[in-house]
């Protein structure tokens, strides 16, 4: 792929004008300069995140405790979904570099095949990100704050005192049913049955939901799951403020409001998460569009008329850059 870059230029003629001292075309060099500036933008954003985190007095959320769901499956699979997303992006980067390689052999059908797969990979990544966002926004099923100080016994047998205002997270399924009633929380028919809280929906679709467990320290420390008596003690000490996932503006205090939301523990984390992954997702989206445009150009035999496929190489640079950014986002948001 080096081509011209490997051919020797004598010192006498190097600065004589008429050729690029980098031995690349103008377009490719400008793509590199754009990528340097874009990399500085992303670097600046990630460093702002580092600043926020280094200066934060409150505990910081743990990546593998915030992101551990898989679509359609119950249970917890820490980092599995984001590993899948990373793999999709790496594979689409590979198909892109294979398209560039095919272009250098003037293999039109090869370019079409690999670029088509790259576009599909990009669309899969965007879809995965949409699911992950919606899941993260929706949250764990809801949380409430303790109205007073409570002492409970943990599963390890230790006595644990929780201050008033401590955040307690509800079971996913229970939280979702609770959500339908939350605008008038005091009239929700709730009963106790054998150490469980039972919510009975009296609407058109009779349905019972059992609250089996509550969680404390979710996202920020090694979380503790509480059942039985400890759970009932916490449940009975709840304040009237329930919230579900991220607060929805304009829905009033019953929805918890921003200070009671699931992410109130560390708003900075979710702000940076949504901004940086959103900005990256926008790059993926524009990359998919540009790839599609070049795909159509190849389909219309534009590159055959030009006798070279450098355009594929240039969009390839942009596409690999998108993968490169994700490698860093992955490390700093999910792993560290």
């Amino acid at each position, binding site marked *: *792929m080096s*081509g*011209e*870059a490997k051919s020797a230029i*004598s010192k*006498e*003629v190097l600065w004589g004008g*008429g*050729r*690029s001292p*980098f*031995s*690349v*075309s103008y377009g490719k060099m400008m793509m*590199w300069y754009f990528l*340097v500036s874009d*990399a*500085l933008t992303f*670097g*600046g954003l990630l*460093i*702002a995140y*580092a*600043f926020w*985190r*280094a*200066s934060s*007095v409150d505990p910081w959320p743990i*990546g*593998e405790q915030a992101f551990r769901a898989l679509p359609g499956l119950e249970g917890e699979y*820490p*980092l*599995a979904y984001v*590993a899948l997303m*990373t*793999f999709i992006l*790496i594979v689409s*980067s590979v198909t892109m*570099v294979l398209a560039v*390689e*095919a272009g*250098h*052999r003037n293999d039109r059908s090869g370019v079409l095949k690999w670029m088509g797969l790259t576009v599909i990979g990009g669309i899969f990544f965007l879809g995965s990100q949409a699911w992950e966002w919606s899941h993260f926004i929706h949250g764990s099923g809801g949380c409430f704050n303790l109205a007073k100080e409570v002492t409970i016994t943990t599963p390890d047998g230790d006595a644990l005192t929780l201050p008033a205002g401590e955040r307690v997270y509800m079971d996913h399924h229970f939280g979702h049913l609770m959500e339908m009633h939350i605008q008038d929380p005091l009239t929700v028919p709730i009963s106790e049955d054998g150490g469980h809280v039972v919510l009975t929906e009296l609407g058109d679709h009779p349905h019972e939901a059992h609250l089996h467990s509550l969680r404390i320290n979710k996202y920020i420390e090694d979380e503790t799951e509480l059942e039985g008596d400890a759970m009932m003690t916490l449940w009975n000490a709840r304040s009237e403020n329930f919230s579900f996932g991220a607060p929805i503006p304009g829905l009033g205090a019953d929805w918890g409001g921003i200070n009671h939301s699931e992410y109130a523990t560390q708003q900075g984390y979710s702000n940076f998460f949504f901004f940086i992954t959103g900005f990256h997702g926008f790059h993926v989206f524009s990359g998919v569009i540009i790839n599609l445009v070049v795909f159509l150009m190849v389909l219309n035999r534009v590159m055959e008329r*030009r*006798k*070279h*496929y*450098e355009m594929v*190489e240039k969009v*390839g*640079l942009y596409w*690999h850059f998108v*993968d*490169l950014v994700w*490698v*860093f986002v992955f*490390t700093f948001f*999910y*792993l*560290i």
Partner: protein
Amino acid sequence: MERDDLIVNDSYALNAHHSEEEGVAIRKKIYLVTVILSVITAIEVGMGVMFKRSEAFTWTAIKWTFIVLTLFKAGYIVMSFMHLGDERKNLRNAVIIPYFVFILYLIFIAITEGLAHYGMDQMFH
């Protein structure tokens, strides 16, 4: 002096062409890099699931391992997939050196000031 090196029209792009045999070797290298990137990602995910965050020294070591592995991946993507490693040395330097000068300074200043801010918060909390 007679110039025979002048670049006209699309010669740079045309010069990047390679034969079928060279293509086989290049594809082999691409697949090798794919395997390396996948393995590093798998190691990172495994470590992420296995180790819990803590105040201990081991966590600091793990954190730096993550960063080093990430830089390895980034290096492979830039040098091999973006084939900056195949370009002229002066293009490589024009891209990499200014970037690192800016970014290392930014990292240094943001972490330093962030920690100083953390100290102030602790003091006046």
